[in-house]
């Protein structure tokens, strides 16, 4: 909403208030002022100049010498460089002594040998705009010597305010003036238009039928005769333009002027163009069309409220008039509509047609049903003054069920409780009265008010408390000392557990990333084209790149690694925690929370093999088990990470290099090395290992309390064993055999070497070396005891795995 302060001053005295002060008070009472703009001529002493003659400058090609009639007796000589200077042009003239917008005072000067007695101005020099393309061109009827202010208006300030949807009453200057009146304790001045009416009665010339009371609770129509369509007076045009409305002609301008003044949209029909001299407020019928004032022919559907004449729709009720019934340059009899339409209906129609206007904007938020008559009278009076219109003594006012004013009361104690402070009852009553509320009753407990018809937002006690708060000033509400308040029984451990998982992943050395919840079919197809049917596609996506809710965190994890690689990032260890989405078998939508881990190795030919890359990922998972307090697997005296991997075949993983992951004894997710065909998309030539885990599988043990077990005071003994076995023998086979043979004194098994390339080892076999740690709780083990235990294990390896022990 644009608010020209000069115009606003009609309704409330603004003298002595700076525009900053006004803007600030409005902002802090709920009408946020977003801009303060200065408009109009900022220069002083500028008059209209008429160029009589243009001569070349004797010494400068780009300058010319103009002889200008500045309204004084003798024409002035003015040196000018603008290209549009020509005889007959009327342009702003700054004579000697005038002051430009930038503060420069004009003096007589000699320019390249020619005496110049003033300056012809462009708009920027006057502060009217930033235009400097040429001299400002004034209308032909401007009189030489006339002060420029009379034509472009004197300097003014225009505020632009954001009006929240609950305050349609402030979509008007009177509404804003009312607010300022309360804030600055100044009276509101509302004009009281008086009509001098003559001529025949409206009912004899015009028939109005209100068929839809619901859609249009009140409809008024006034007949104005003797209208002469012409431009509006300059001051009115200027005010409209400063408020952001284009001036058209006096009839249209007056309807807009009154709408901006009081918030009531008006519409003018040419009586001559209404078939049957008749207006009907009804719903549109199937197949009807209407060409609206914007030139578009619109197909109407039943349900749309229209104003029709005897034959066809002539206006979209509350939204826009029709091309074929509006005011023309020779219109003599005007039907002035002022009505109240149902907000929801206007909103629905405006949305359905994709058409909104200053009028629909106000109606859909809620106009003032009681202000309808005043607006009509005000417009008629202005048309009488500026268009020669004569009003009929009567007018149509169809208002079958007048709205009754709400009564709302407020308890003082409740206001104090909610605000945490007490503005004082007298003060609050003053605010209410200033806003137009009628005080019906007041005692020590409460105040009962009647809400004016323009305040659609005031319905309940809380609304009145808000009025008191915003006018009193929220800055006067004290900040209470914060205190801790513990609410018993609120268990947030499930949420905390999920946050804790993130902390521990970071503690393991992984960096957190965050991707959009949206992704594309293209990326998903690259990973796994087989799950297309189960994807959670958005019915109204923003773009193809953001068309699907992610079914997995892995595609974007791999994409993120790839994007970093393409930016020359060498290695990365990332994790992301987020929700994934999928369609259920019965067509429903579901979500769950997951964790993704991605490792990208440093590039370089053969610098890291696939096995090491995968083992690094496995190391993260093993440490994660411990970090999440999952109980270790206890085999005799040996504790192993509760991590079990089983071969799997994920579509995105390299064949034979993908596993499903069990953690803490339950299925947690999947892991593997990304297929090279996928990596190639981002030119990653080295292995990339990723895992995706269900959040719920990670949290069950997080709050397990570790119970202390005494640490043996007796020293441990290490024994190594190295042996050659077939390639088919896995580390887990070795562990299994060792544990089968192990005494309870075996504490730890560490693989420290795998070796293949040697003349001593046949193809298809490998050498493995382990260090085993023995320790007793009860005594210090002797060498002999350790050797005996170790001997059992060696024997077992030989017997079960056909291992060749290397001594």
């Amino acid at each position, binding site marked *: 909403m644009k608010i020209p302060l000069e115009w606003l001053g009609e309704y409330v005295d603004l003298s002595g208030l700076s525009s900053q002060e006004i803007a600030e008070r409005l902002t802090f009472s709920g009408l946020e002022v977003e801009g303060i703009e200065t408009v109009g001529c900022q220069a002083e002493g500028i008059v209209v100049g008429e160029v009589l003659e243009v001569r070349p400058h004797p010494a400068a090609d780009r300058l010319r010498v103009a002889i200008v009639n500045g309204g004084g007796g003798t024409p002035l000589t003015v040196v000018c460089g603008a290209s549009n200077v020509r005889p007959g042009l009327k342009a702003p003239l700054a004579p000697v002594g005038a002051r430009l917008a930038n503060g420069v005072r004009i003096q007589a000067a000699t320019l390249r040998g020619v005496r110049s007695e003033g300056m012809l101005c462009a708009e920027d020099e006057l502060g009217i705009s930033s235009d400097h393309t040429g001299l400002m061109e004034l209308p032909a009827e401007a009189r030489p010597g006339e002060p420029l202010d009379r034509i472009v208006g004197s300097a003014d300030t225009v505020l632009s305010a954001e009006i929240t949807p609950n305050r349609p009453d402030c979509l008007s200057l009177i509404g804003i003036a009312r607010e300022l009146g309360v804030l600055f304790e100044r009276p509101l001045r509302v004009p009281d238009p008086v009509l001098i009416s003559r001529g025949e009665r409206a009912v004899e010339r015009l028939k109005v039928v209100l068929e839809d009371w619901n859609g249009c609770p009140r409809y008024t129509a006034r007949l104005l005769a003797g209208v002469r369509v012409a431009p509006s007076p300059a001051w009115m045009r200027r005010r409209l333009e400063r408020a952001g409305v284009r001036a058209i002609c006096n009839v249209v301008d007056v309807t807009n002027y009154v709408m901006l003044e009081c918030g009531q949209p008006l519409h003018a029909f040419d009586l001559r163009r209404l078939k049957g001299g008749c207006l009907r407020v009804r719903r549109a019928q199937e197949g009807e069309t209407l060409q609206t004032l914007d030139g578009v022919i619109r197909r109407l559907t039943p349900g749309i409220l229209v104003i029709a004449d005897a034959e066809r729709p002539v206006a979209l009720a509350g939204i826009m008039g029709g091309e074929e019934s509006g005011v023309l340059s020779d219109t003599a009899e005007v039907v002035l509509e002022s009505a109240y339409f149902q907000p929801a209906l206007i909103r629905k129609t405006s*949305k359905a047609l994709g058409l909104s206007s200053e009028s629909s904007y106000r109606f859909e938020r809620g106009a003032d049903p009681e202000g309808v008559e005043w607006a009509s009278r005000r417009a008629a009076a202005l048309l009488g003054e500026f268009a020669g219109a004569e009003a009929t003594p009567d007018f149509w006012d169809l208002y079958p069920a007048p709205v009754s004013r709400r009564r709302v009361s407020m308890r003082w104690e409740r206001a104090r409780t909610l605000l*945490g402070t007490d503005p004082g009852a007298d003060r609050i009553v003053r605010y209410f009265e200033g806003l137009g509320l009628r005080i019906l009753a007041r005692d020590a407990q409460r105040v009962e008010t009647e809400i004016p018809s323009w305040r659609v937002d005031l319905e309940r006690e809380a609304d009145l*408390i*808000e009025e008191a708060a915003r006018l009193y000033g929220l800055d006067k509400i004290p900040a209470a000392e914060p205190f801790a308040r513990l609410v018993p029984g609120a268990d947030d451990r499930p949420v*905390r557990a999920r946050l804790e998982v993130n902390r521990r992943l970071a503690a393991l050395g992984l*960096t957190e990333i965050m991707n959009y919840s949206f992704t594309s079919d293209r990326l998903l197809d690259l990973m796994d084209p087989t799950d297309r049917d189960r994807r959670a596609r958005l019915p109204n996506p923003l773009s193809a790149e953001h068309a699907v809710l992610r079914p997995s965190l892995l595609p974007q994890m791999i994409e993120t690694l790839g994007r970093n690689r393409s930016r020359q990032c060498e290695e990365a260890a990332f994790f992301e925690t987020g929700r994934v989405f999928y369609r259920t078998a019965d067509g429903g939508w579901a979500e769950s929370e997951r964790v993704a881990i991605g490792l990208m190795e440093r590039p370089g030919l053969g610098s890291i093999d696939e096995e090491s890359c995968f083992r690094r990922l496995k190391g993260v998972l093993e440490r994660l088990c411990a970090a999440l307090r999952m109980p270790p697997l206890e085999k005799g005296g040996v504790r192993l990470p509760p991590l079990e991997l089983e071969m799997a075949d994920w579509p995105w993983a390299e064949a034979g290099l993908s596993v499903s992951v069990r953690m803490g004894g339950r299925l947690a997710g999947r892991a593997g090395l990304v297929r090279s065909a996928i990596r190639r998309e981002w030119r990653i030539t080295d292995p990339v290992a990723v895992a995706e885990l269900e959040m719920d599988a990670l949290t069950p043990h997080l709050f397990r309390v570790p119970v202390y077990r005494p640490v043996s005071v007796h020293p441990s003994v290490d024994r190594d064993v190295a042996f050659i076995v077939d390639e088919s023998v896995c580390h887990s086979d070795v562990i299994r055999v060792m544990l089968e043979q192990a005494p309870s004194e075996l504490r730890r098994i560490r693989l420290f070497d795998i070796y293949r390339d040697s003349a001593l080892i046949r193809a298809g076999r490998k050498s493995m070396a382990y260090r085993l740690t023995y320790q007793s709780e009860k005594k210090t083990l002797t060498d002999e005891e350790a050797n005996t235990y170790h001997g059992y294990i060696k024997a077992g390896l030989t017997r079960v795995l056909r291992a060749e022990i290397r001594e």
Partner: protein
Amino acid sequence: MEPADLSALQEQALEELDRARTLAELEAVRVKYLGRKGLLPAIMEKLGDLPPAERPIVGRSANAFKENFAQRLNVCREQLERNRGGVVPKRAWDPTLPGLWRGMGVRHPIAQIMEETIQIFDRLGFTIADGPDLETEWHNFDALNTPADHPSRDTQDTFWLTDTLLLRTQTSPVQIRVMESRPPPVRIIAPGRCYRRDTTDATHSANFHQIEGLYVDRNVSLADLKGDLTYFARALMGSEVKVRFRPHFFPFTEPSVEYDFSCHVCGGKGCRVCKNSGWIEISGAGMVDPKVFHNVGYDPEQWTGYAFGMGVERLAMIKFGIDDIRLLYDNDARFLEQFA
């Protein structure tokens, strides 16, 4: 013997000390220069042969020699003794080589703001609550007193999945879920991801994060809201930060306010971060609307409460000086590592 000769001799002696690779070699150097039959005692002996005028000069030089030598000898001995058992390493130890420990996980800046916010409200006794991203129309709009034809429900703004299911547009539905599930008092903070059909640009993102706060009890007031938000602002942004309220309009609070923090960069004097206003707009808040209480079965006569929301991306951008929201979802390692 000239003093100049003496200084050349000192230089030679110190160099030999440095070159010694074992304690034994070091001892040999010591004996060579300071031993009973060493070079320095020999010079001292001949002091008497000099003209009386030169004697004190050479004497002083000889004493300086002795002192410097002893000092360097100590340094070299210590160094050699530090090497295990006096064994000389093949290469000299270079402590300036880069470290080998690599693991350093960094939390995402959005997560950092969330964690910090949770911790601050934790101190005030707020517990954490949570809700789904796939939310019902009831929880996201109806129960929050948003009228059926409110623009925010528009398909232009909201990702609707079915007629009644949507991607939540705010974390406020968590308020409803919590109040539906337990009786007052309630004191919760709810971080989460939200969705709006905004085309992505420097300040908009179609998914973003919010933190919702809700406090319901007997006699909760706007003054409490102001106090708690001020406490939060200071804990997050700095101890001088002030909080300012401007009246606003939200369907689920009455009175509704927008709140600003005074600029933590310039202290309110005006700078680039606050666009010279001295204030930074944060988000909306207010007193829970009686209709919302009614919708969850709380008695608005008995209970009052405040609610606030805040945009996590916005807080992160303000706090860390990030000027483009897209950087937060780009996951460039060089960006992320700055928040270690």
